[in-house]
């Protein structure tokens, strides 16, 4: 800031100060209206007490949603693929989609390769493919996990941008 800036600003500040110092003309009935409001019985505390809590809960919820959304964009995408030229559908079930057969259908690409890419946080996940809605097929490219239920299960360990 130069000295000329300060000189040109001073008169402006002076004018603002003068405006602020002027007495404010109040409505002559204002005082009586305020006193009447004050004589009213107080509102139930519960009614007003909810407001800050509700606002806090709403803000926390929104912040959580934003954080989850932000994090999902930063997660490494892991590819799941299966060569199954004669299949009419292939879906993916695992620890990342609540083992829901409808949650993650794979898309059929060239030469009968079914594939999808999922953003996954670093960790260890068990999964398997379901072919044509009934056949459980493990991922031939990934390690098998000991199975507790008599169906083949594969495992993927996500470590940042790479995968095991």
């Amino acid at each position: 800031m130069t000295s000329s800036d300060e000189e040109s600003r001073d008169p402006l500040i002076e004018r603002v100060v003068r405006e602020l110092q002027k007495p404010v003309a109040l409505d002559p009935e204002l005082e009586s209206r305020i006193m009447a409001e004050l004589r009213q019985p107080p509102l139930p505390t519960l009614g007003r007490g909810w407001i800050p809590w509700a606002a806090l809960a709403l803000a926390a919820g929104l912040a959580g949603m934003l954080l989850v959304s932000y994090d999902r964009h930063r997660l490494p995408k892991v590819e799941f693929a299966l060569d199954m030229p004669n299949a009419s559908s292939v879906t993916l079930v695992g620890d990342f989609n609540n083992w829901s057969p409808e949650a993650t259908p794979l898309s059929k690409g060239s030469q009968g390769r079914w594939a999808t890419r999922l953003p996954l946080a670093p960790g260890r996940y068990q999964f398997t493919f379901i072919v044509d809605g009934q056949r459980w097929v493990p991922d031939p490219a990934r390690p098998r996990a000991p199975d507790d239920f008599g169906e083949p299960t594969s495992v993927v360990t996500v470590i940042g941008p790479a995968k095991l």
Partner: protein
Amino acid sequence: MSRILLFLSLVCLPQALAAQDPRLAGRLDATTLGTVSSIIDSARADGLPAEPLVQKALEGASKRAPGEAIVRAVRTLASNLRTVRTALGMKSSDQELLAGAAALRAGATPDALRELRRLGDSRNLAVPLSVLADLVSQGIEVTAASRSVLDLARTDASDEDYLRLKQRFDGDRRP
């Protein structure tokens, strides 16, 4: 008073909702749901991660396993998570516990996990444990797999080093 009640309800509501996971309700029969929920509640009360147990139950449901098999699998996993936490220490992360439980399930011993913690100190052991589980699951003899992972741990190896170890075994096993 009303503020106190409201505060308590906000604090307690998530715990009440968590008592029975809504994802399990439509997927398990009533008896299995009750037993599995009880195991999960108990694990949660002990400070163990509940999510792997929920996923194990959902896996069983998706594979149309009998209720007894689902209960058995969830109970075994909860027990393994406890054993792993004892071996690795109370400050272990959820991912370490899950990977350690997978290693135990595959056949690794609690002693091997304890030794890994001793060598790794405060390092995150999720990847070394996961690699150990994979090696054993793939048929590598438990002692040999544990020794390989422990040897690597003595060199202050990175997660990528463990990845290379597993890939080396993968390569050896390919015809």
